[in-house]
Structure formats: structure tokens, C-alpha cells
């Protein structure tokens, strides 16, 4: 308790507590109140993704030569490797799910209206970032699913009028997937 008091006086612990646990929301009653947790859920998943992503990066090698083998190594040899990768895998999926649900909550409740337009714009940017990470992260295991999903995804990007070929080249890093044959 002494340590807690020490930290309380010197940090903003109380404000963090208030922001997280005692935030004022319009409809606190019933199940509607639960909708206000979607943003926090997204942030929680983001934290998990950042930490597990850092951990995986200590063993993963992002090159066509080693990507697949290093992922198999993480799965089969590293302590808790399967759990950490599993967390990252499912976290990636649910990050998109919760970010979209959160956006829908904001949209249908009109929470983007004055004075919150800037929050909405930032949110749209973050959602695009999440989708971008979701697309690029899907490639990393470098298995058949990852490879062909990225072939399909970059080909779709390539159908953009006028600049399509350029976009596809940027996404693939060259005119084909993986090392040049």
C-alpha cells in the first residue's frame, strides 16, 4: 500500500483510473452500456498485438528463404511459441472485428457529430491502418494461403485505373511475388 501511495502521488494513476473505470457515458444502463467497451477492447487487443508481435519478431525472419521455416520453428521449438503466435493470429482477426464494430457503434449513435469530427477522422485513419496491417501481416507466414491471398490482393490493387500497375509494383516490391525466379 505504501508503494501504491508513493506512485499515486507521483504519477497520474488516479486520472488513468478515472478515465478507464469511471468514464461518464450517456446510457450506462442495460446492455447498451456494453457497446461503450468496444473501443477499450480494440485497444486491449492492440496492446496484445504489439507485445506478441515484438516477441515473435525475436525469432521470425522476414525473408522468402527463412520466413516459413522460422514460423515452424516458433510453433514447434520455442517455449510457448504456439501460444504467442496463436494470440497474435487471433488478435489480428479480432482487431479488425472490434475496430469495425467500434466504428459502427460510433456511426449509429452519432458520436462523430460536433465537437467530435476530428476524432472520427482520426478513427478512419486508424481503421485503414488496421486493415493495412491485417493485409501485410497475413503474408508473413509465407505459406500457400499467405502467398496466394497476397497474389489476389495485390492483383486487385493492380486493377486500379491508370495507377494500378504502379500500386501493385509498390505492394509487391517488384514485378512478381517473392524472389525473382
Amino acid at each position, binding site marked *: 500500500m505504501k508503494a501504491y501511495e508513493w506512485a499515486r502521488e507521483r504519477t497520474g494513476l488516479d486520472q488513468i483510473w478515472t478515465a478507464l473505470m469511471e468514464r461518464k457515458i450517456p446510457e450506462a444502463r442495460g446492455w447498451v452500456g456494453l457497446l461503450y467497451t468496444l473501443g477499450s477492447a480494440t485497444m486491449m487487443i492492440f496492446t496484445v498485438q504489439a*507485445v506478441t508481435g515484438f*516477441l515473435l519478431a525475436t525469432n521470425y525472419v522476414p525473408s522468402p528463404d527463412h520466413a516459413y*521455416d522460422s514460423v515452424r520453428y516458433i510453433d514447434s521449438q*520455442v517455449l*510457448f511459441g504456439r501460444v504467442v503466435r496463436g494470440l497474435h493470429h487471433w488478435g489480428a482477426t479480432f482487431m479488425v472485428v472490434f475496430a469495425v464494430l467500434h466504428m459502427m457503434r460510433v456511426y449509429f449513435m452519432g458520436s462523430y457529430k460536433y465537437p467530435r469530427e476530428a476524432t472520427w477522422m482520426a478513427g478512419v485513419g486508424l481503421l485503414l491502418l488496421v486493415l493495412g496491417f491485417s493485409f501485410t501481416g497475413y503474408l508473413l507466414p509465407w505459406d500457400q494461403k499467405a502467398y496466394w491471398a497476397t497474389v489476389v490482393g495485390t492483383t486487385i490493387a493492380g486493377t486500379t485505373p491508370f495507377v494500378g500497375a504502379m500500386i501493385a509494383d509498390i505492394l509487391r516490391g517488384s514485378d512478381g511475388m517473392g524472389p525473382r525466379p
Partner: protein
Amino acid sequence: MSGPDGCGCAGKGCTEKTPEEIGRRAFLTRTIVALSAVITAALSTTGLGYFVSPAFQRRDEDWVDLGRAGDFKAGAPRLVEFTQRKRDAWVTSERRSAAWVVTSDGKTFTAFDPRCTHLGCPYRWDAGSSRFICPCHTAVFGPDGKVLSGPAPRPLDQYQTKLEGSRLAILPKAEQIT
């Protein structure tokens, strides 16, 4: 907290409670904090275990077989070349190397790293004087690896040796002898 569902505070409609009783809000707060603590503990144990696991990994000992121990004659050191296969995670690499094997009685064996301790030149055995001689800067070592003359700062580096039945094996990791 206020409202008809009862609480521990002094809002209107609330009854005073004894200190032992906890209100709905306090109960929920404690439950949330406890659950969060459990989740945090589970996640950080996993992450921490993953992060520190290299420190507790079992390491392969890469002993290399050098052939029958009887083939090494006393007083005639022999340079043995070998190929070492090493596994590190998902990569297997091969390394060609060599060792000078010396025995004085055919029972105990010493293996020397084939590089001079001065600047790393490969030295040779001079049968006439029974010494190891480095051609680069004329460092001279005895058959026990000790420096006899020249610029070498320490005796020849050694490899661990062991007998597996009638075969000689070495662990090709240079160990400094001071």
C-alpha cells in the same frame, strides 16, 4: 453510486451500511480488478517465458568423430580434417575444420586448434625436432602445446577429447590454455 439497486454511498434513497458490507459498485470493481489481474498474469507469464527461454534452452553438443583411436600413433601428431554439421534452429550449416591430434601413450589424447595463437596461421609438425613450427613468425610449440620460442602469447588452444568405445571424438570449440 445512486439508484434503487442499493449502494454504499450517501446518495438519496441509500441506507447506511456497516463497513463489512460491500455495495454493488465495489463488488463489480473488485471483480473486474481481480479478473484483469488474472488475465495480465496469464499473458505476461506466457510472454516472459517465451522471451527468456533461450537462456534455458538445451544446447546440442557438437562432438565430431575422428575415427579409430588406435590409428593415432604415439609421438606422431596427425592433422585430421573433418566436416562439422551444426544445427541452429531451422538452419543446418557445415563447417570444414581440422585438428592436430597428439598422443604420447595411445590412451590419452590431446587435440589442438590448428591455428597459431599468435596471429592465426596454420602451423606444421616438424618430425625432426618434434616440435610444432609456425611458418609466419617462427613461433615454436612443444608436442604438449607449450610455447618454446617465438612471439606466441599463450600455448596452443585445445579441443575437448573423449573416447567413445574405441573411437576418438572431439568437441571443436577452441579452449584457451593459460
